[in-house]
C-alpha cells in the first residue's frame, strides 16, 4: 500500500499542488515554518480521518479561502482507490471515496498510515489522558468498534456526573453505574489486549533506539480499581467502595476514564525520570510499534510519516531506524538541512523542496535558484 498521487488545495499554507510518488522514500526539505509539517498533517488527516494536531477545522483552511481539500490516490493490492477530504468553513468535513461521499465510519478501504510528530513526546510526558488518547486512537484504527464503545462510555459518564452533581436518587445513578461497568469492561479489555500486542514491538524498538540491554516494562494501571483478574467484579467492588466519596466529590472516580499506562525503564517511570532523549526515543518507538501491529493484524504495508526526526538522531540510530522501515513501505520524512546519509542500496529517493508553502521537486527548485 502506498500513496501514488496527492492533490492539495488551500490546505493551511500549502500552495495548490499535484504530485506523484513511488512506493519508496520521499524527503521534504526546507527551513522551519515553510510548510513541511503541514504537508505531512494533510496526508495524516486524509488517511486516518483526524488531524495529528487536533485543532479546529478553520485552521486547516488557508487564510482568506473558503474551503480546503486534500486528495490522495492509494495503490493497494494491484488496484487503487481515491480518498479525499474537503474542509469548508462553518460546515462539517466531507469525505469522498472515489468521488462518492462517505462517512468516516463506513470507509470501504482503510489507508494504513502512522506518523511521528515532535509533539508526540506529550504522550510520554503529558497527562494520563494523552496516553489513553493514543491507545484509544491506535486501537480504534484497527478495531473501529472500540471508538463506539468509547463514545458511549463518555456519554454515560457525563450523564452520571450530572446526576452526582444534582445529588440524584441512588436508583437512577446505579443504572448509569451498570452501563459504565458494562461498557467500561469492554474498553479496558480492548486496551489491555492491545497493550499485550504492542509491548513486544515497543520493547524491541526502544532497545534498538535507546539501548540494547535495558529492562523495559509497561504497566496498565486501573483508575480506582484493580485491572488484573475479573474486571467486572473489580469494577463493581470499586464502585461500591467509592460510593460515599463519589457523592461528596460529585464526580465519577472509578473507571477507564482514569486509567494510566506506565512506561518503566529499569523500574523507573519515564515520565518522571526519563531524559528528553529517552522520552523522544520512546514516543518514536510507540509509533513504530503501532506500525508493527498494523502490519501484523492487517497484513498490509504501512505508510510512515516522520516529522523533524533526523536532526536529532545520531547516525547509528538513524541507520537502525532506516533498516526497520525502508523497503517495508512508503516513507515520508522532513529535514531542515542536508539530506541524511542513506543506508546502502537506498540512494534513490525523491526530494521535494518546501519554501513558503510552495512544494517543488528538487530539480525544478534548483532551476529557480540558479
Amino acid at each position, binding site marked *: 500500500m502506498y500513496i501514488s498521487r496527492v492533490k492539495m488545495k488551500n490546505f493551511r499554507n500549502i500552495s495548490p499542488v499535484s504530485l506523484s510518488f513511488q512506493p519508496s522514500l520521499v524527503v521534504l526539505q526546507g527551513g522551519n515554518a515553510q510548510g513541511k509539517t503541514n504537508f505531512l498533517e494533510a496526508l495524516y488527516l486524509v488517511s486516518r480521518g483526524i488531524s495529528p494536531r487536533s485543532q479546529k477545522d478553520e485552521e486547516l483552511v488557508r487564510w482568506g479561502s473558503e474551503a480546503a481539500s486534500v486528495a490522495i490516490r492509494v495503490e493497494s493490492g494491484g488496484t487503487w482507490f481515491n480518498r479525499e477530504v474537503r474542509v469548508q468553513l462553518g460546515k462539517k468535513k466531507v469525505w469522498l471515496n472515489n468521488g462518492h461521499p462517505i462517512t468516516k*465510519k*463506513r470507509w470501504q478501504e482503510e489507508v494504513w498510515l502512522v506518523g511521528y510528530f515532535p509533539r508526540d513526546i506529550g504522550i510520554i510526558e503529558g497527562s494520563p489522558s494523552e496516553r489513553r488518547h493514543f491507545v484509544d486512537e491506535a486501537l480504534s484504527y484497527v*478495531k*473501529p*468498534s472500540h471508538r*463506539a*464503545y468509547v463514545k*458511549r462510555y463518555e*456519554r*454515560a459518564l*457525563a*450523564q*452520571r456526573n*450530572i*446526576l452526582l452533581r*444534582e445529588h*440524584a436518587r441512588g*436508583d*437512577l445513578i446505579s*443504572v*448509569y453505574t*451498570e*452501563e459504565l461497568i458494562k461498557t467500561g469492561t469492554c474498553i479496558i479489555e480492548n486496551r489491555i489486549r492491545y497493550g499485550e500486542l504492542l509491548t513486544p514491538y515497543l520493547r524491541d524498538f526502544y532497545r534498538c533506539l535507546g539501548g540494547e540491554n535495558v529492562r523495559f516494562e509497561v504497566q496498565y494501571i486501573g483508575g480506582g480499581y484493580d485491572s488484573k483478574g475479573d474486571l467486572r467484579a473489580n469494577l463493581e467492588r470499586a464502585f461500591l467502595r467509592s460510593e460515599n466519596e463519589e457523592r461528596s466529590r460529585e464526580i465519577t472516580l472509578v473507571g477507564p476514564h482514569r486509567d494510566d499506562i506506565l512506561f518503566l525503564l529499569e523500574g523507573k517511570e519515564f515520565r518522571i525520570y526519563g531524559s528528553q532523549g529517552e522520552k523522544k526515543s520512546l514516543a518514536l518507538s510507540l509509533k513504530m510499534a503501532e506500525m508493527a501491529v498494523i502490519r501484523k493484524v492487517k497484513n498490509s504495508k504501512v505508510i510512515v510519516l516522520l516529522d523533524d526526526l533526523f536532526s536529532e538522531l545520531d547516525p547509528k540510530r538513524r541507520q537502525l531506524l532506516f533498516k526497520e522501515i525502508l523497503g517495508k513501505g512508503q516513507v515520508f520524512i522532513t529535514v531542515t538541512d542536508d539530506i541524511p546519509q542513506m543506508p546502502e542500496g537506498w540512494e534513490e529517493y525523491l526530494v521535494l523542496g518546501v519554501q513558503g508553502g510552495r512544494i517543488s521537486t528538487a530539480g525544478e527548485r534548483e532551476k529557480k535558484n540558479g
Partner: protein
Amino acid sequence: MTDTYPESLRRLIASFSRLPGIGPKSAQRLAFFLIKSSPEEVEELVGSLSEIKKKIRLCSECGFYADKDRCAVCNDPSRDRSTLCIVERPQDVLIIEKAGYRGLYHVLGGSISPMRGVGPDDLSIKRLLERLNATGSEKIREAILATNPSLDGETTALYIARKVKPLGLRTTIIARGLPLGGDLEFTDEGTLTQALEGRREILTG
C-alpha cells in the same frame, strides 16, 4: 432580500422556517405555493392547523395521540390486552404497528437524559407502573421494552426493567442485531456482538 416582501408574507415565511426540516428557501416556496392556492385549499389548511391544538391530545391510557379520551388502539376490542409495548415517542407506535404488533402500548414521552434535564419523573413511568400493577381481566402479562438502542434509550429501559421486575411479570427487550437484507461484512462489530449475544435456536419446522 425578504425585506422587500409585505410584512404578512415575511411573517408566514418566518413561521414556516421554524418548523423542523424547513430552511429559509423551503419556507419561501411553501409561502408562494399558498399565495397561488385557492381560498378553499388555504381554509382547509387553516382549519386543520387550528384543530390540532383544540382536538389532538394524548390518550389518557397509553399516551399515544388521540382525539377522544382514549386512542384508537386502546379502544380497539380486537387487541391483545395482555402485552404492553413501551416506546419513547408517540410516532414510535406507528413504527411498531407496521411490524404487525397487536398488543397495547405505553408511550413514555422521551428518554431519561440528565444532560437534557429529563429525569424519570418527567416521563410517564409512574402511570406505566400503575397500568402494570392493575389486576383483573385486563392484567398485563408481558412488558416489551422497545426504546431506542442508543445510550439514553437503553439506560431508560434498564431503569424501567428494574422497577418492573419486582411486579413478577415477564419483561423483555426487543432484540438488537442485523438488519434484514443487510450484509455481515458491512455490519459494525458492536451490532454483531449484540446480535451474537441475542442469538437463538434456529427453527427448522
